[in-house]
């Protein structure tokens, strides 16, 4: 099985700090891969290197077996890679529909769209409503509602729906439940599983062990700038995972990177 994403020996230095130290990374088709690690272990850095937010100093990144060299997240996005950021990346005063299509708006067919560059608002609203309904999120009153009038969970839902609607390769989620309450987290976790059920693999960066152990198929443990090991959550307990990522315990040889 060709991994959807594969990173080999990636290095990234910021001055004297080595954020990524010859790290490997692998995301397999159809899986949820959780990335865990202590603060400063470099888990965000490796994910940023994969999506083009930073360019690595050495090593290579392959997407579906082909080497890529993204210079910005926009390029990654054009390849069908979507990112759900911790701080959401939604524009508060714009509507739900506007937000879902930011940067890839649909234009009207014919003269209006081609020469007057008129947006096809109806089509965008219809599509946004469809996607939100598919994910069971149509509890919002109106698709034209500004995002700032939504609750935290609803906003996160819009961000996930946007990613799910446009991702063809995979989705990266950076702490999607960090700012949410118990019930709202639950909703987002269900969303994540829904997205996997559609066959889109997900990279989930999270600090929340119960959430990670609940949804992840494999767990990538990052420590001191590199992959320490990849474990199956069924074979280990949460305390094992915490012990590995903090260095309290060495991972067994067969799982080590």
């Amino acid at each position: 099985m060709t991994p959807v994403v594969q990173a080999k020996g990636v290095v990234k230095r910021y001055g004297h700090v080595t954020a990524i130290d010859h790290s490997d990374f692998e995301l397999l088709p159809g899986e949820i891969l959780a990335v865990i690690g202590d603060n400063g272990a470099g888990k965000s850095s490796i994910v940023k290197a994969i999506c083009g937010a930073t360019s690595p100093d050495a090593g290579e990144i392959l997407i579906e077996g082909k080497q890529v060299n993204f210079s910005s997240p926009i390029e990654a996005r054009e390849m069908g890679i979507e990112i759900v950021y911790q701080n959401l990346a939604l524009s508060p005063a714009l509507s739900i529909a506007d937000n879902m299509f930011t940067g890839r708006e649909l234009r009207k067919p014919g003269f209006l769209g081609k020469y007057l560059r008129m947006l096809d608002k109806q089509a965008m609203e219809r599509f946004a409503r469809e996607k939100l309904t598919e994910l069971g999120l149509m509890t919002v009153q109106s698709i034209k509602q500004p995002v700032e009038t939504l609750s935290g969970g609803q906003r996160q839902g819009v961000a996930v729906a946007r990613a799910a609607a446009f991702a063809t390769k995979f989705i990266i989620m950076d702490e999607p439940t960090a700012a949410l309450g118990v019930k709202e987290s639950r909703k987002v976790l269900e969303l994540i599983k829904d997205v996997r059920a559609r066959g889109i693999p997900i990279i989930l960066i999270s600090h929340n062990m119960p959430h990670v152990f609940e949804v992840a198929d494999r767990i990538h443990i990052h420590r001191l700038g590199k992959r320490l090991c990849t474990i199956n959550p069924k074979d280990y307990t949460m305390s094992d995972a915490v012990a590995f990522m903090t260095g309290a315990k060495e991972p067994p040889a067969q799982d080590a990177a």
Partner: protein
Amino acid sequence: MTTKPGYEQVLDGSDTQVARFETRHTLLKRVQHILHNNPTFVPVIVLILSLAVFWIIAGGRFFSAFNLSLIMQQVSIIGMLAAAQSLIIITAGIDLSVAAIMILMSVIMGNLAVHMGVPAPIAIIVGCAGGMLAGAMNGLLITKIKLPPFITTLGTWSIFFALNLWLSGAQSIRSQDIDEHAGLLKFFGNAVNIGGARITFGVILMILIFIVLWYMLNKTAWGRHVYAIGDDMEAAEMSGIRTERTLVSVYMLAGLVCAIAGWASIGRVGSISPQSFYEGNLQSITAVVIGGISLFGGRGSIMGALFGALIVGVFQSGLRMAGVDVLWQVFAIGWLIIIAVAIDQWIRRVSA
């Protein structure tokens, strides 16, 4: 739902109501909410009220077709500058150089066409290109060197004003000279008379500029991006908007509108004076603010700036006709600005 960890099992029995809402909406709250969704309502209401009040105070002389069309003529140039200013303010920026660009470009058009014998259409095209270049300079300084818009345009205001004095030699170009060499420069001073109203081409141009910019801001992807940038720059960047490119295009478009306003100002004033419209920068900001466009970016309709400019015009004309001293006109405009910003702040505090 089957894989829920133990401690969350109790959730199944939990209250499904997310929040309880007070249904006791006060009238004030409801008004606040409507204004939040329609930021142009305030200036429209103020405009209608001020027309009514001055009609009562100053009488039919004020509310005549002639006087109302005169007000339109008086606000036409500042209105165009306010249109350019709105574009910038919606991105959460500010442009102190709009009037300086306008005058500089009118001087360039005049110098080329009147003194150097360049055909008027070419002089006008050069002036418009110059306006875009001046805007690009503002935009590039702000995006590439990351200077705050306020400081950048404070600097370019002086630079453009100095260039204007240098190119013009601080001399006006007389009306007769323009008529003789390049009548086209005064094109927007022409007018059509309908009833008692005198509608200049400059007024029509101003309205056209507002309609075109409104279309661009509301019906095109570019416009949505302009709002998104003003709303939250970082979020816009992360959702895939090429923010720097869009910002430079906004400043260039504003520069172009200023240059066109420069052309129209020749028709309005009759001559080309390097000293005219010195307060245009601040007057354009006044119109934008009174028009309900938020100085914090991302909110407000460009049509608000048109109403804002008209409100200022109506106040000045009405107070003058009511025999009030000029100083009290200035006083009234000052209060209008403060009240407009206070209302904006109040509207922004609305929560769901």
